[in-house]
Each structure stands twice: as C-alpha cells, then as structure tokens.
C-alpha cells in the first residue's frame, strides 16, 4: 500500500474515532487536540487494526500520537 493511501485512510479513521474532521493534509497530533483522550486513543487503535488488518504492540501505543507517526508505524507493520 502506498504511503499516500495509508495517510488518507488514517485520516479517515481518526475523523470517525474522534468525531472531528481531520484535515486531508498537514500535521494533526494528539497534543493539539484535547478530544484525543486515552479512551479515544484506544478506540482509534481498535479501528486502525481493523482498517489495515495489523496488530500493534503495546509499546507502539505511545508512539501513535500524530497522523505522521501512525502512518510510519502502519507502514512498518504492513512490511513486517
């Protein structure tokens, strides 16, 4: 899967999980969006695992704090 496609699907998933429109381009991080709390974070992880048919490790969870980080992680998981 191409990075652009992963990026698009990550943003769609976050939009659904956070109930907030994530812009199609540019940075989007947990730090800047207070609604991205720990419960939404778990829900987002559940949805991303479904979306990409991957499983993240517990150690990955803190590293998933922005669209860019998630895209990189998904790429890694898909390559594994």
């Amino acid at each position, binding site marked *: 899967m191409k990075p652009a496609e992963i990026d698009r699907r990550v943003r769609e998933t976050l939009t*659904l999980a956070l109930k907030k429109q994530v812009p199609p381009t540019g940075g989007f991080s947990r730090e800047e969006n207070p609604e991205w709390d*720990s419960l939404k974070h*778990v*829900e987002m992880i*559940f949805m991303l695992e479904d979306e990409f048919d991957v499983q993240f490790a*517990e150690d990955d969870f*803190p590293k998933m704090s922005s669209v860019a980080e998630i895209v990189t992680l998904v790429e890694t998981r898909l390559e594994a």
Partner: protein
Amino acid sequence: MTTSQTKAESMTETRVEAALHRAEFQSVVFADTPKRARLMRAAAAMPTQGPPIKLRVHRNHPFEFIATLLPSFCGYAGRNIEVSISDYDDSLHFSLEESADAELIWLDFTRYKLPLNELSEWLKNQTTLLRRGSLAPILIAAHPDATNHASTFNASITQWAKDIPAVRILPLNEIAEDLGEDYFDKRMSDVGATKLSERANVTLARKLGLCWLPSVLEPRLKAVVFDLDNTLWGGVLGEDGPDGVVIDQGYATLQEKAVDLADSGLFIGVLSRNEDADVAAMFASGRMQLPLEKVTDRSVSWGHKADGMAKIATKLRIGFDSILFVDDNPGELAAVASACPGIKLLHAAPDPLETRAALKYFPGLFSWGVDETDLLRSTDLATNDARQELRSTTKSEVDYLSSLQLEMRVAVDPAAHQERLFQLSQKTNQFNTALKRLSTPDVAEVLERPDKHAVAVWLTDRFSDSGLIAAMFVSVNKAGKLSVDELCVSCRALGRGIEDAMVVAAINAVSETRTQAGEKPIRSVTFALQEGPRNGPALTWLEKFSGQSLATKTSVELSRTDTSHFDKTRTLPIRFLKGEPDETR
C-alpha cells in the same frame, strides 16, 4: 387523487424504503466479526423512529468502547440510543435525577476486595436501592471469568435477581466462553483501563443492542415466516424438482435454527409461490431438517405473497408487527412490507449461514429462556378448532361455556407478572380500549402507586391453559370512582364470549382490594377509549357492555350498580378464583 390518499401512499413508500434500507446494513450488523468503522458509518445512515432509548450505565470500568457501537445496533432495530455513563464508581452511588428506559450495572468485579459471596450480597442491596429509585428494567453484567468462584457468584446473583422485579443478568461468562482467549486484550489494560478485546466489545455491543435491550423494552416477536426457494433451500422447487433443490450443510443449519425458534415458542410460517402439493412432498421427502409439524401455518400458492401473509396472520391471530418475514427476493420483501404495515423484514442471503447468523441476533427474537406465554400461545391455537367444533354442537351459549369447563383467575397488582402485563399493553391490537401502550416503567408505576392498580386475568378451559390473557390498568379515587385507563385482552382469549365476565371479575377484584384497605368500594366505572386502526372489536364490545354509543366520545361512564352485566356474570358457568396461580404446581 385526494390529499389523504397521497399522504397514505407517501407513508407506505417511506415505510417500505425504511424497511429495505435497513436490510442493506445486514452484512455490516450480522457479519461474523463486525468492524467498528463500518458499524459507525452505518449508524449515521440508518433510519430510526421514535424517541431514543435512554440507557443509564453505572460502572467502575470503561463502557465507552461498547457505547459508541450501540447506535449502529439499536439503529438496525429502528431506534436511536442515548447512553449516559456514570463516573468510575466502585461504590455504585446511583445518580438518578433524569429518567431512563434501562439501567445497566457494569462492574469489573475483580476490583473488589470482598469475598464474592459478600460481594453478591452487597450487589443485591445496591440493586434493591436502584429498583426503589428507578422504574426502568435493570441489567446487570455477570462476572465473565470461568473460575469456580465466578460461577458461584453468577449463580448467586442470578438467584436473587429473580426476586427483584425487572432485573436481568447479562451472561458475559457465556460470551467470554465463546470467545476464549480473544475475550480479553491485555495490551489495553494500561492505556485504556479496559481488559476487553475489540472482539468482546463488538460482540457485547451487538448482544446488548440487538438482543438484551430490545428484550426488556419491547415484546418479543411471535412468528417467523420463511420463503422456501433460495431461502430455506437452494434452488427453485418448481424448476429443479425435489431432488434438485439443495439442502447442504448451510441450509440444514438454517433449518435447524428455524426448529430452535419454534421450540422457543415462536410460530413458524411458510410463505411460498409454489405448488402446495410439491411443497408437501418436499417436506415428506425426509430431506428437511425443519419438519412439517414445526410449521404452524403455510400459505403456498401462485397468488400475491402479501395476501398469503395476511392469511397467515389471521390464522395465527397476530398482527403484522409481530412477524418477521424472511425472503431472498427484495421485490417480494417490498411488496409484503407495503401491504403489511409494521412487518419486520430479513433479506435471505445467498449464503444460508449468513441468514442463520442474522436470525441469531435479529431484534425481537431473543428469549431469556423458553417463554411460557409463547408455548401457551401455540397450544391455544392448536386447540381452537376443537373449541369451534364444541360451540357448533352445543345448544346455547351457557351450555357451550359450561362444557368448556372454564376457570378464570384474577389477581390485583401481581408484580411478578410485570413483563406479561407490559406485553399485553404493547401488543394487543384488536382488544385494546385505549391504546396507551404502557412501557415497563409505566407498568411498574401502576403496580407501585396506591391510587393505581393492574389487574391480571388468567384463563384455562378443558382444552388448554391460556395463561395470563388480560390486563386492566386502572386509577381509583377516594370516592370509589374507577377509571379503566387501558383494558387489553389477548386475541387468543377472544371468541369464547367471556369478555364481560373478565372485566366484571377484574372490577370486582379491585373493589374488594380497596375495601380491604379501608377504602370505599367501587361505585362507578369510566372507560378511557381511543379509536385505532385495529381495535374495533374492543370498542364494539364496550358499546354493548355500556349500552351507550361511543361516537365522538373519549370515555364512557357507567354505574357499577345500574348495569345488569355484573349480576349476569355471577350466573355464568365459570369457576372464579382469586390470586396469582401457584407456579410451583
């Protein structure tokens, strides 16, 4: 075309569209492992009606991962849902300012230091407190662990839950057993404070939204009517012949599910465009897992399926809104939905196992065990022909009643039968005088309040035990004036000519209860009335009973002493009994 015709046609179109639109979400809702994102997208597009279900959750661990999925499943059932979740609170300090349609106690029992037997006792006390503060059904999530201690705890809470009205234990242990290691996801403990896996969240949300909540908020459906070709078997009987149609493992499993539904007390119907002789031969061929004796009624012809459905509903004496119709042809589903208001639809998938999965979860089919009322309904229907034959051979109405050997039992405020009283209010169409459609909390309030009463009537005759077949909800004032807010009689009990007797016995029972409590006896009775699309039989009866024209009236009043019905009833050959039946007999 008149405005009213246009409006009626428009409503029919909307109804059919909504029913078919909902069918589009079957693959999302009934999937083996439903996906959260697909469910959440579907929720936004599903047609719903009526006020949202208000679910109040009292918890000490996250419920949010389930709550966000409930709109999808409740939406499929046609309802919106609003979930209000308490703070994390091990002490269960209930906050009950707003009203709720259902209460859910959602606890992680491993957080408590108490021995489980003491925890059960504490939970019982808390549930009793909640019962006093809320009239809504209470659902309690069981301990999901498979340990002996957890099993003993679950057995304990299940036992005391029977003694508190409208309390149900959600068998999380069974879900956990089904999912095995997939029930928990240890990765999430730290980050989300939940131990549940996504599979567990989705499975529990589906069970809650499609099975558990509908079962405590609405009466169960009464019948499932199946098409045959490409629904209960693969292929077309008229073209492929009895040896050509496919009953492979998938169709056999689907037919077994139909048998399970029949055994759980539902009527099973068959509605097919075929030659009846061919269908009869197919059932006699030995290939069917669904035997003909499990099929309560069948309508097989080349006519319109809507007409066949109407015949089945008439034969079973039930409304369309109590029926689920399963067919592989969307056109047939649309035609039946158009002509049969309120009927529920399930599109039979090309893979019969998908249809089987849908029947496992379809809203309104779930039962907490074999329902005695459902079983009595089947027996009553089966013995109806015998009653008709008896009527034709007896010389008079009194002889007929005498030969029926009727026994009528009346109880005032039988709290243990709250659920059945609720069912009668919700589901009776032909004999319902005021169409109030009381909710579970409404019925609970009637049972609690000193100025209101719910009267239940049980009926048996020589052919069958019909069970609790009538409910009368009344208000009484200090002067002995009784208002019948709603009178509903199951259509199973109609046709024996004993409606007067039931009502008089119910009024007498209320009067006796009031006088025993030091209040004045009942002197006058006012019946609230509301004309609906199908309650003509009830209003016709009331007109005759009161001796008054009901035209333009919203209520009708009669003096208890003036009417002859009260005296006449005493002379009828019916054995009248008081109090609830002894369930242990």
